[in-house]
């Protein structure tokens, strides 16, 4: 039917880069030992060196030192570790109050809810119609008992970038720890922990053509954090479990392969998608900010039609995109992000998210939009709302 699949859901997962796989291979077949101390056997010492080199180069990307970077199994584990680990460490001395934004991704949002059930008081920060958090509200909510503030660097669905510098300054003035989930910005949007006083940063390899199942948590030196998963003494006794050395090496390679030119190319695809959709198709609105958004994300609502119907038609034509419609989600709940920015179910119902990656081209953008124009027209033909609007 089609000779090509066009994958435009790179915020969910990405195609592995072959060069990443090549970098990982020796750690599966030759240097497969656990990382040992320098008094161990040769293969274990080699493995440890590979792990250390990966740690160092990933940490440098954030302006951190190698010791401040802990490898994890990905975004979910990193954010669990940050919220649960810090809360456990400071709750006796300080308190267990948490502040998170309303539009966090599930690793932060549901960890906060879980801590709430265990007795933490949690405040959910409001965001404006573009998804930026209310800084005044943040300032007013911080108390002496606040254990941690957790606000994402950019949103997973609408790509909105937070003013992380302003957030970090507020937290540091009030002497409160700050965690940020940077899954959707790491290597795409600069974040330097030397310049911005964040204390913990979640990162992941799966959004940058690295292996899935590998992530990291930056923990600023001196940050109180308790080990939340019991087991061995790996990662300087901060994260138990056999180190995923091939994964760590692959993550470092993936980081190395992202270039400013690539990020600029993604931004061009994003901008082209947004302006072409708004120009070519009537009744379309942009979700999020036109300016303050990640280079790879475009999220638009096509009014009077439903998201799953659009994604299914697109799939039949070889395009993979996602939607915030309740019909598409496993929970049958409409996107909490679209509702969080003040949208209603109707806005979520017809929303589509396009996220670009290394293997997409400008031709892909033109192709998906020309298919989408036809699909939206076809679905509007049968929509009772569209008939009403005319």
């Amino acid at each position: 039917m089609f000779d090509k699949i066009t994958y435009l859901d790179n915020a969910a997962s990405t195609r592995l880069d072959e060069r990443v796989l090549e970098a990982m291979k020796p750690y599966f077949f030759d240097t497969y030992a656990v990382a040992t101390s320098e008094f161990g056997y040769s293969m274990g010492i080699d493995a440890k060196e590979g792990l250390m080199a990966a740690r160092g180069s990933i940490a440098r990307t954030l302006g951190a030192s190698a010791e401040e970077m802990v490898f994890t199994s990905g975004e979910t584990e990193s954010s669990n570790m940050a919220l649960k680990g810090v809360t456990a460490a400071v709750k006796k001395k300080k308190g267990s109050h948490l502040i998170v934004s309303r539009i966090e991704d599930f690793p932060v949002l549901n960890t906060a809810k879980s801590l709430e059930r265990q007795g933490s008081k949690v405040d959910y920060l409001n965001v404006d119609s573009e998804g930026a958090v209310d800084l005044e509200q943040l300032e007013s909510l911080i108390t002496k008992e606040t254990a941690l503030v957790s606000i994402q660097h950019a949103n997973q669905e609408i790509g909105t970038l937070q003013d992380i510098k302003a957030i970090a300054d507020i937290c540091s003035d009030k002497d409160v720890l700050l965690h940020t989930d940077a899954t959707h910005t790491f290597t795409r949007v600069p974040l330097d922990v030397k310049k911005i006083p964040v204390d913990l940063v979640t990162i992941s390899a799966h959004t940058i053509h690295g292996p899935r199942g590998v992530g990291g948590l930056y923990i600023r030196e001196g940050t109180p954090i308790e080990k939340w998963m019991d087991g061995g003494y790996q990662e300087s006794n901060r994260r138990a479990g056999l180190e995923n050395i091939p994964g760590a090496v692959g993550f470092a390679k993936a980081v190395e392969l992202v270039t400013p030119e690539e990020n600029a190319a993604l931004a061009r695809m994003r901008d082209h998608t947004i302006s072409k959709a708004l120009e070519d198709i009537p009744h379309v609105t942009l979700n999020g900010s036109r300016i303050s958004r990640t280079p790879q994300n475009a999220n638009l609502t096509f009014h009077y039609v439903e998201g799953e119907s659009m994604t299914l038609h697109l799939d039949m034509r070889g395009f993979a995109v996602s939607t915030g419609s309740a019909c598409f989600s496993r929970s049958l709940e409409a996107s909490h992000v679209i509702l969080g920015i003040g949208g209603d179910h109707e806005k979520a119902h017809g929303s589509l998210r396009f996220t670009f990656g290394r293997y997409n081209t400008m031709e892909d953008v033109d192709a998906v939009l020309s298919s989408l124009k036809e699909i939206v027209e076809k679905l509007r033909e049968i929509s009772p709302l569209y008939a009403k609007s005319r």
Partner: protein
Amino acid sequence: MLKAGDNLKFPYTEKVLEHFRNPKNVGKLEDADGKGLEGSPACGDMVAVYLKVDPKTTVIDDIKFESYGCASNIATASIITEMAKGKTIADAKKITWQEATDELGGLPPVKRHCSVLAVEGLRSAIRDYEEKHGLVSEQEPTTEEVVRSRLKHVMNPMAGLDIVRTELVTKIEVKEGIVRVVLDLPSSHQFANAIKEDLVEKLEALWDVKEVKVVFTEG
């Protein structure tokens, strides 16, 4: 190598996909004898059904639908219009969600809600026809229970479920043709008007209802 087209893993049967791709009886009948609208745009899927009925035989001569919904909603509406066409309204009323689903070769269980809406759309179009043509056999007086069951078709846009199940309705009173509904919502709420309009439309259609009063709870 993964190629599009030869590797589609849809949770839907070929029949569902066929009705989704090329839905039957799509559109609107401007001079419809009966019409039904179920669901609400503020919270999710919506379906409209239009009927032309032969007054002598009560056979459904023509039927059309419009959908603002997902694949299950479109496919169920398409198949149910095919099933109802040519049947008397008495027979068409008896078509169940299960029969429509079976005809489609099955639907994923989580999609039940979206497809039930299509069946309800047909039934409400038939009810509309019956009410307009004095065919409601025993004119059941409107009681609190009747009102409650009608209000289960009014959606709460904040939850995506109806206003009865989400406990927005705190009180219903029926007295001499006047229905009074108390909602646990301030009148300044962003969805207050949308809910009120939908609610009034659903209750005014009842034969013995003269007036619908909606009371909001402030503060």
